């Protein structure tokens, strides 16, 4: 049985770092549940939120097929097949099940391209989250904990940049740097770090005044230790929810940049690029635009569903509201 100090709430976490006595920690633990029990509880809760459950399922499927794309995809996504050009999806007239979602103007399999395209979307999403998140959290911690001039300078930069025409500046930057996956990551990270900084600073300001942070300071913890071990854990829940919402925004932004031709390279495989190239053939082959479009929408939708589920489980008040709502509905059903 392992006890996860990180998950046991802030007070305990603090005790462990002050006393350093793992046994005392285990003894005091008021709900010493194992990690597997927590996971099981989480799954049960996920099952209750049907929308969130569907979202998680779709995203897992997407991630698995992206990771194992060479095994999952029926064709090589770059393989041109001039005999089977502009084949419609399998279920419509003239379709063929060897190309389930049809082929494009060069005879490349649409389904395979979508599966490989997921790699770019997911990679860009995660990379931007890491870069923007790290930068934003670090600067937010610094602003909130140091206060004074550091705080004023950082927050002034945040406020100013928030008031910029974000996507247009992203387009300008991306076109100047030149299209590539790296460009998209850089541009979108610069475009999105501010929101993490703001949230982090807010949390730090509210936590800074608590007794346990003061206690840590009194016993002589260094600023860095206070920031990392005592303040940072409070950020886990809000930052996770924020990161999930941001992921949806990044997937949309990457698709938009690639659609406009300033995102990834022309030779890369991306949903946005596929929509752009399908636009020229919109009069006779609708599926070239519709298939990647639907996939982008479904991905963003699933992420939003997961985000709203996360928001509920991370917030006790929301949790209570939801519980009350189901009780009322159940009561109404019994009455009627």
């Amino acid at each position, binding site marked *: 049985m392992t006890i996860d100090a990180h998950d046991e709430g802030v007070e305990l976490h603090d005790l462990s770092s002050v006393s350093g006595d793992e046994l005392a920690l285990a003894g005091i633990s008021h709900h010493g549940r194992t990690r597997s029990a927590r996971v099981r509880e989480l799954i049960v809760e996920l099952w209750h939120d049907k929308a969130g459950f569907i979202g998680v399922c779709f995203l897992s499927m997407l991630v698995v097929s992206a990771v194992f794309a060479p095994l999952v995809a029926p064709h090589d996504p770059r393989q041109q097949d001039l005999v089977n050009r502009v084949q419609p999806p399998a279920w419509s007239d003239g379709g063929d099940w060897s190309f389930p979602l049809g082929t494009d103007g060069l005879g490349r399999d649409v389904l395979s391209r979508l599966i490989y395209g997921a790699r770019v979307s997911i990679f860009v999403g995660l990379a931007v989250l890491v870069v923007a998140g790290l930068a934003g959290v670090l600067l937010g911690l610094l602003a909130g904990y140091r206060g004074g001039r550091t705080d004023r300078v950082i927050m002034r930069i945040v*406020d*100013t940049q928030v*008031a*910029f*025409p*974000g*996507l*247009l*500046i*992203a*387009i*300008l*930057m991306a*076109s*100047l*740097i030149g299209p590539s996956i790296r460009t998209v990551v850089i541009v979108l990270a610069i475009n999105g770090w501010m929101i993490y900084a703001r949230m982090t600073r807010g949390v730090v300001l509210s936590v800074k005044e608590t007794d346990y942070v003061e206690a840590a300071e009194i016993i002589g913890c260094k600023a860095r230790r206070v920031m990392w071990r005592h303040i940072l854990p409070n950020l886990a829940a809000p930052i996770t929810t924020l990161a999930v919402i941001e992921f*949806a925004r990044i997937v*949309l932004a990457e*698709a*938009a940049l690639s*659609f*406009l*031709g*300033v995102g990834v390279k022309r030779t890369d495989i991306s949903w*946005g690029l596929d*929509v752009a190239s399908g*636009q020229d053939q*919109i*009069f006779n082959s*609708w599926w070239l*635009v*519709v298939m990647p*479009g*639907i996939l*982008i*929408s*479904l991905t*963003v*939708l699933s992420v*939003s*569903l997961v985000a709203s589920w996360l928001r509920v489980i991370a917030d006790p008040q929301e949790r209570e509201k939801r519980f009350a*709502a189901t009780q*009322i*509905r159940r009561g109404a059903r019994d009455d009627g």
Partner: protein
Amino acid sequence: MGLFALRRIGQGLFVVVAATVVVFLLTRAFTDPVGFILPLEATEAERAAREVELGFDRPIIVQFGDYVEDLSRGDFGESLWQPGRPTIDIIGQTLPKTLKLVAAGMTLAIGLALPLGMIAARRPGGLLDRVLVTISLIGLSMPQFFVGLLLIIVFAVQLRWLPVGGYGGFKHLLLPAIALALPAVGRLTMVVRSAMIDELNSQYVLVAKAKGLPTRAIYTKHAFRNAGVQVLTLSGWEITRALAGFTVVVEKVFAWPGFGFFALEAIQRRDIFLLSTIVLVAAILVVVVNVVIDILYKLIDPRIEVS
């Protein structure tokens, strides 16, 4: 109030100045403007000649001085793509078209989201609410270019009711406006809904109900007034985001000749001066919208303070 407005305008000016500096540094210092303008196969000599011609060989601080001086005279530079033509001239021609599209799209978005959100908030968790929430979620998940292309496939290619694209009257405006509006309708409906639910659950609404006010009065006079502050902020946010990027996408899909469309043309034609003028003008517009919204905000709710 006057002081509030002045301070807010001062902050806005600061943002404009910052945007000018950022655009300048992005286009002259942090990237290689000559590399952007010239084709890949250009020789070193050609590059050097072009650098001198455009003044990019001078020290960056001298360039910045000149840039600011030109801007202060209202001179935004000449287009490279259409030599001899001031970039601001192209803006003057394209900006009204973008504003028309954004105005139409956002009117549609706010006009739809307000009633839909309020209807959904009447019975949270009810059938109508769940249907509206689902539709909103689907709407806000769709990228504008996909909405636009779907509309083209259905209404222009299949039904042939409306034109595929281009600039013109109401018929040309309809599809792009819907494409710009739909994701915003989804987001705004959710905001109106949750703001209204919060207000309807508050004590003062209970009092209003208890003293027997008609539901309609509670909705319009009490709850909506208070929810309006949040709705206004988010509407302003939608307008700025539409101006500062989403129009580019929609204008590309429908070949609508606004400044977003020309920003993409500028990239294609390697016209760095036109591109930076467009970004700068968009920054000014975004600041103006933000300042106006904040002042309106203060008029609705005098408790707000400038941070």
